[in-house]
């Protein structure tokens, strides 16, 4: 068993040293400010108060702060946008320095030939969307769909998240062409072709075996990413959304898979393929202020389950052709299986609202009670029906409404399954139930070979790595190499 890492607290002397790097105005130990950064929700319930917050404005300042932290053995939690879990990297015990990268918010480069943009960590989805729309209207940045405009495009990418083109282009990490990373020692490395001085980030696999994957999904444990080159995609003028209803998640799964196998054509136009069940509509409102049973929603024309296909095309003809083909697949599916998958005739306003990016659709689930969690998992697409069935059943067993959202990644090769657990954050009992539900389902799902999207440090990471010991052992060795004193977000992935 490895010796437990020991860390030091942030002392006034350390604050003084940090102030020497970033300036007094950009470091604080003010208690109210420290508490103002706390977040418990969206992706995890556990977080703690940092000992100090620092807001570096440049790569040099990031280097300086990390060198001090390494010298002093003080943990550092990097964060930028503060979404997807309050903070993608909430500070956890033993606390230390919270590095708020929001001040580093420059859009550095847009290359419409090699088709990427380069941004700093603090560039938010809303900003990059407006910027590209005005300056490069033919090109779309892959901003996260469903996350509000405060989410950062870099954070979403390095966390291997989900974007408005994930159905076509794969998980967001696949859009990363290169990263500039400051290691705990203060050294800077670049990944992909960027590793060669003077080279553009045009080839993500770099100048040899590429190390980029070590930083994607690392939750701030391997290095602080200070620049990222991310692919941009053609922003096509012809867009629509078509939706199909189903009685159960298996028909949702199977029909979607049939459409998605039409790659190099139909499915390539389906940039975003996402659906879910009827409680998604209900739980956006306070539980005592909205009809609680399916009957009312059925009357509104809402199916028990549904799938939206967002289609982008260069021409009206191409759009019509794609929509027609999806409809043919749906009808053929109905005929062959005898299962109903009717087209949901969307009102133009419903289509417009589904096309809006970035949007706030994932936010209001705290209204149902007083808090919610997305406990998100990746499965092979062909398993998403079973995942949905099990999770919905478990949520009901624990007294939570069975809310499920599912989306296709890369032509439904994989599924991102996001149960929305609407709980009462003011109730200890409710929080305990969430924890039990999470543990029980994690044990079931790991046995089935499914992966948690952003493993929390208390349930997902330990249970996952207990099953993948060799992999974890290697990760620990690599971590030791990159971060000798283990200062970067210790504990987050079971990595000291």
């Amino acid at each position, binding site marked *: 068993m490895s010796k437990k890492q020991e860390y030091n607290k942030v002392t006034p002397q350390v604050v003084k040293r940090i102030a020497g790097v970033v300036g007094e105005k950009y470091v604080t130990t003010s208690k109210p400010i420290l508490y103002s950064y706390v977040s418990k929700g969206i992706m995890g319930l556990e977080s703690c*108060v940092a000992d100090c917050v620092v807001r570096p404005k440049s790569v040099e300042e990031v280097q300086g702060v990390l060198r001090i932290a390494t010298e002093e053995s003080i943990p550092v939690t990097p964060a930028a946008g503060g979404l997807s879990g309050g903070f993608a990297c909430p500070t956890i015990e033993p606390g230390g320095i919270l590095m708020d990268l929001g001040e580093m918010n420059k859009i550095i480069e847009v290359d419409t030939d090699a088709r990427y943009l380069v941004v700093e960590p603090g560039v938010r989805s809303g900003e990059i969307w407006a910027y590209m729309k005005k300056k490069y209207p033919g090109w779309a940045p892959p901003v996260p769909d469903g996350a509000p405009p405060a989410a950062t495009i870099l954070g979403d990418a390095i966390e291997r998240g989900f974007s408005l083109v994930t159905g076509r282009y794969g998980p967001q990490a696949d859009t990363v062409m290169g990263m500039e990373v400051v290691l705990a020692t203060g050294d800077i490395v670049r990944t992909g072709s960027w590793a060669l001085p003077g080279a553009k980030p045009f080839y993500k696999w770099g100048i040899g075996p590429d190390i980029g994957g070590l930083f994607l999904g690392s939750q701030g444990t391997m290095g602080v990413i200070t620049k990222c080159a991310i692919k941009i995609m053609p922003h096509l003028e012809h867009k629509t959304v078509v939706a199909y209803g189903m009685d159960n998640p298996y028909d949702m799964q199977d029909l979607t898979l049939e459409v998605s196998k039409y790659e190099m054509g139909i499915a390539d136009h389906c940039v975003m393929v996402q659906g879910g069940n009827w409680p998604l509509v209900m739980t956006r409102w306070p539980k005592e202020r909205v009809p609680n049973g399916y009957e009312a929603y059925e009357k509104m024309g809402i199916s028990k389950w549904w799938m939206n296909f967002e289609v982008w095309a260069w021409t009206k003809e191409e759009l019509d052709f794609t929509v027609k083909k999806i409809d043919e697949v749906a009808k053929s599916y109905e005929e062959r299986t005898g299962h109903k998958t009717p087209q949901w005739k969307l009102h133009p306003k419903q289509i417009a609202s589904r096309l809006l990016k970035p949007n706030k659709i994932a936010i209001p689930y705290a*209204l149902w009670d007083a808090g919610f969690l997305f406990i998100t998992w990746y499965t092979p697409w062909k398993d998403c029906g079973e995942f949905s069935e099990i999770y919905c059943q478990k949520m009901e067993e624990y007294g939570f409404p069975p809310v499920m959202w599912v989306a296709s990644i890369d032509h439904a090769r994989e599924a991102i399954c996001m149960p929305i657990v609407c709980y009462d954050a003011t109730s200890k009992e409710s929080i305990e139930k969430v924890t039990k539900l999470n543990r029980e389902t994690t044990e079931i799902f790991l046995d089935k070979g499914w992966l948690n999207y952003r493993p929390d440090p208390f349930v997902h990471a330990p249970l996952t790595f207990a099953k993948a010991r060799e992999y974890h052992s290697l990760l620990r060795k690599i971590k030791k190499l990159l971060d000798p004193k283990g200062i970067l977000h210790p504990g987050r992935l079971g990595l000291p």
Partner: protein
Amino acid sequence: MESLKNLQKEIYRCIHCKACRFAYSGEPDRQGIGEYQGRLYEGTLTGCPSGKEYGWEAYWNAGKVWIARAILEGNLRFSDEMADMLFKCPTCGNCEAQCENKISTVDVIEALRAAYIESGAPALAKHAGIRDSVNDPTMWNPYKEKQSDRTAWCDGKRKNLKNADVAFFVGCTASYRQKGIAKATQEILDKLGVNYTVITDEACCGSPLIRTGQVPIAKKVIEKNMKLFKPFKQVLFCCAGCYRTFRVDYPKVTGSKLPFEVKHTMEFASDLITEGKLKISKPFNMKVTWHDPCHLGRHVGKQIEKDILAGSNNWLSDQRKADQAKQEWYEKPRRVLKAIPNLQFVEMYRIKEDAWCCGSGGGVKSQYPELAIETAKERITEAQATGAQAIVTSCPFCYLNLSDGVKQMGSNMQVLELLEVLNKVI
């Protein structure tokens, strides 16, 4: 702490999504007015004056909500260092307008301020001065002026009429500092044939006290005003802050519905225009833009929404009704401007529920003038981007702070009070 505890469920709804930082947080595709002085007025923009100015999370709304949660959980106590975080905020309510979880953020901030004062912390220097002045029965106003001079501007024949149906609540700022607005309102009401009166015993509405956490003194003036105005069918206002306080705060503080109808004079005139009872024929040759005062626009708009949803058991179907009612509210001042011949009306980018604040609300103008002015400058720049010659508004505080901002910038922009403009053309 009681008011903070009552908001516990709302406070715990905050998931720290930070949409509250922005204007148009749900409209990333919104068409704007392009680039002006290096700033892009398109899509989603910053909407929080305090967060923009100071940067730390505690100065943005969500940070304050999490401070409130830490206080409720007993992890954080009120301290002197907290004062700036709680009070350097104009309580403009942009954050509340953006919140998909419907957190009453202005109420949370005001409850935090009230709890801060209740904890024994001293009121901030300027706010204490306001409190002492309002609490003095020889004054009842924040300006240290004599109560006997309150209606000195007013035509004597309109004072304390027993047979009037309507009372004109003048407010302290129009009574003592911007008398032109009071006089213009009086003349408008005269021209429109309203049977109204002005009450010489009128006291401060309580707004500056509620905004700065000094609720017990606010309760005293609220009680006094309720007794004075109870006999009337309708009370009209020329001050956005007084109107907001009567409409939104009085029912909360007294625990009952107002016994009279309240209308801002802008709203009164707008309704007459809609009904075809007021036709404006005199021209006003100017290109103008409209600044939505937070107290008159967003705060009342949100209350309209809350009132509709409070009576609904199906928010899924009634939210649209609430949204429509809010939109109708924001149209009212615009309807007045558009009814004036030759007046060329242009909109700024951030308007209505997403309007950028002038910077003077929430006790900021008195205690933190530098924040007030910086915020005003941003609004004036946005107005300049439209090519307007004047910013029209209808709030004495917006009028004052935008005028101060214009002076500091050396801008040619004029700042006009809607009621004064209206008085000239009817």
